[in-house]
């Protein structure tokens, strides 16, 4: 059973040889193949080569084009720095005032720099391993993108001070993300992941007003273009689990701070839960024995369609034997 079949069958609740390994890989990949961090963010060939190596060596089941949150910001015209051997940095907000909103031009993904690079990455994945692995494109969800453009502290106040302007900004972000997602699907992405971590800081009312409706529209557009949607909101989302299930996503990631059993129950009939051990305490700092215990605990809590991952990105300095231990725990689980 290859990874593509495995994920498809598992999502349908059908028997599989093992649950799919859906860990998110970013900064770990270039380090693993000995390439500088900056190349991973700026050159799709490095992103694809490193992720393929990681997927093969550690039995991952999804090839992802996720890298950092700032692809769209860059293409909107924001300043992003790429230190030679560190993750990208965006320390200056592009949209300092809503007066500049009319100047914010939605980019054409095909003529952009960084989204275009991601599209090329998907095409390369498709050629190299498209029949074997599901290929996952990536976008920022509209609320997260608004935060990337305007700043976290600012948006957290805008929800009260400038709700209408914020909705205007969110419409722009939504349009940019839909274009980016559809272009990736046309290039061969089987599913589109979308990150909305910033939305984890909102309570249910504000989440329902500023994050969920835009996630729903983005996900509807992804479905219409023929791909599956994966919603990733890291942080403690316990208070918004009930709303997240209404997003329409096929896969909903669950960070380690959330009770996984509760999440699986909440999403039953709506989406496949994907989670949820601690990426730092368990994966990076734990032992293979502790990892096995954590993976099995998630599988025990889950349903026939439950997927497995650490709550968020695999940390850069994760020992290789620990990442291997996740795959081994999935393989050895006795109760599929």
């Amino acid at each position, binding site marked *: 059973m290859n990874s593509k079949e495995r994920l498809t069958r598992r999502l349908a609740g059908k028997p599989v040889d093992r649950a799919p390994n859906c860990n998110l890989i970013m900064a770990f990949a270039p380090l693993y193949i000995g390439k500088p961090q900056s190349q991973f963010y700026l050159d799709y060939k490095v992103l694809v080569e490193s992720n393929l190596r990681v997927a093969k060596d550690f039995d991952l089941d999804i090839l992802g084009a996720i890298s950092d949150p700032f692809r769209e910001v860059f293409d909107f015209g924001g300043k992003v720095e790429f230190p030679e051997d*560190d993750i990208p940095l965006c*320390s200056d907000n592009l949209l300092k005032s809503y007066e500049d909103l009319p100047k914010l031009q939605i980019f054409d993904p095909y003529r952009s720099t960084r989204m275009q690079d991601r599209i090329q990455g998907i095409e390369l994945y498709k050629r190299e391993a498209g029949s074997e692995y599901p290929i996952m494109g990536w976008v920022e969800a509209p609320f997260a993108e608004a935060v990337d453009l305007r700043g*976290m502290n600012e948006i*957290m106040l805008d929800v*009260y001070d400038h709700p209408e302007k914020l909705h205007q900004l969110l419409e722009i972000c939504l349009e940019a993300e839909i274009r980016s997602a559809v272009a990736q699907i046309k290039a061969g992405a089987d599913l589109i992941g979308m990150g909305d971590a910033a939305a984890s*800081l909102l309570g249910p009312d504000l989440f329902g007003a500023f994050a969920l409706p835009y996630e729903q529209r983005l996900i509807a557009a992804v479905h219409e273009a023929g791909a599956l949607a994966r919603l990733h909101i890291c942080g403690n989302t316990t*208070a918004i689990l009930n709303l997240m299930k209404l997003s329409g996503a096929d896969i909903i990631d669950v960070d380690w701070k959330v009770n996984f059993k509760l999440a699986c129950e909440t999403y039953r009939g709506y989406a496949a839960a994907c989670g949820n051990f601690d990426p*730092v305490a368990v994966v990076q700092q734990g032992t293979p024995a502790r990892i096995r215990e954590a993976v099995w605990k998630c599988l025990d809590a889950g349903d026939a369609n439950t997927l497995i991952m650490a709550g968020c990105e695999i940390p850069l300095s994760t020992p290789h034997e620990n990442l291997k231990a996740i795959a081994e725990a999935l393989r050895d689980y006795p109760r599929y």
Partner: protein
Amino acid sequence: MRANEIKDLIIKGDAAGTAWGVEEMLAAGLAVDDIIQGILVSAMNVVGERFREGQIFVPEMLIAARAMKAGLKILEPLILQAGRKYLGKVVIGTVKGDLHDIGKNLVGTMLQGAGWDVVDLGVDVAPEKFLKAVKEQKPAAIGLSALLSTTMGSMKTVLGLLEQEGLRSQVKVLVGGAPVSEKYATEIGADGYAPDAGTAVHVFARYAS
């Protein structure tokens, strides 16, 4: 307006109302310290508690902090005029390589509200910059915030640098942020740790001059 009503305005995040209420309290002859402790700090304690319990979230916490600051601003000239002393000076910042600042800002605002003179060095603060601030500002304490497991190591570097320069005994060092724990704080030799902004106020209070 009664004290409790002003507290409610802070909790609701009504900055203009809070400023107006504080002015009324002053006009009615209430002492500055009583307004700070009895209204501003007390309201923020409620806010901190509700945040911890998941009744309110980050935006509500931020607008409450802003309302509290608006009240504090009315009092500032009087504080200085009366020669009223701050609890002391604290320098805070997010450590090198780390851009997360919401938690650090909340800690700063709460400390300000509690009567500290707060110098905020911002985000991505190099250990040398903390050292320089300790030399120049002579704070009673410094507060280091880190949200990444990859940057929390910088806290240890700051402590080492202070030690190396013979300044360690002159300043208390407090650490916080999601991946930081009491255990880690002890391991690296920090003087204190707080899991949230409300607790940070209590921990810093030990070092008031």
